């Protein structure tokens, strides 16, 4: 249940990025597949934490970023069909280097001037 810590960190980042006097309508965040964050839990925490604050009513949009790896043996880049099998389709070795699928990135804010 690290959704609470992550969502609170997100809210702090949103506040830091908000232009003065603006009101937040929507916030878009990318979440890597391997972060194992439940979007429904994040939405619940977002709504509970922003209610009755300057961010009240703002929508949280969560975009899932798929796992992508580079083979450490032959450098082929691929998206594993099953995240528990990292077999390189070109050379058959299992030496994945993570290219995407981890990380939580705040991407954009939709704001209206008040």
């Amino acid at each position, binding site marked *: 249940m690290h959704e609470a810590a992550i969502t609170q960190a997100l809210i702090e980042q949103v506040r830091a*990025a908000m232009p003065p006097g603006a009101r937040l309508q929507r916030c878009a965040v990318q979440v890597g597949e391997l972060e194992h964050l439940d979007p429904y839990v994040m939405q619940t925490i977002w709504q509970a934490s922003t209610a009755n604050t300057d961010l009240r009513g703002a929508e949280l949009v969560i975009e899932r970023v798929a796992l992508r790896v580079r083979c450490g043996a032959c450098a082929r880049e691929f998206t594993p069909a099953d995240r528990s099998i990292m077999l390189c389709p070109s050379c058959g070795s299992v030496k994945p280097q993570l290219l995407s699928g981890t990380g939580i990135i705040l991407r954009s804010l939709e704001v209206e001037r008040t």
Partner: protein
Amino acid sequence: MEIKVVANVLKLNDEVAALNRRALAEAGVACLNIMGSPGCGKTALLEATLPRLRPALKIGVIAGDIATTRDAERLAHLCDGVTQINTGGSCHLDANQVRQGLANLDLHALDLVIIENVGNLICPVTFDLGQGAKMGLFSVPEGADKPAKHPRIVLEADLLVLTKTDLLPHVPFDKTIFDADLRSLRDDVTLIETSVVSGAGLDAWCQWVRRFVDERKGVQARQVSQSRTE
């Protein structure tokens, strides 16, 4: 109006982790972050091996738990400094908690800090603490399917340990499936199989730790001298 942002949500954590890494490098201390499920044998492995690693290595331990100081009490007489972090309810340690933990240790008197993370195979992997290596533990009674169910720890670990191997004859654990699942994720990660009851694998683990400390100190010395010339 849309404002484009590209900001790592864990930026604050990662900045503090970088401070931890720098403080450890300047003191010449290696740091190992140990992660595994509750009851997988993190503390037991340390109890069994700290006496072998000392006194050649001076070792501090940061023990993370939701509640109690029991792990710190178990390890206090076996190491050169211990600090317990109670997260209250949080399922992982973050870099700021480790920063406070490091402040309670005399880093210049140590060679190695071992962080025993909160028992959990999922959440701790997300949070950089400033460690030099990550170690993942699986235990035999948890079942053979843990690597397949928890791929990230396998993908990011510098070392994996399978504990409680003395139980292999007594519990349904298909070692063939465990090995096949693990090697479907990574064929290049070291796996050490241990039992604190039989003593199996403990020498191998101690050797890995000694080599890690030596290598890490070499890397840190180069980084510190580089940052001084910049």
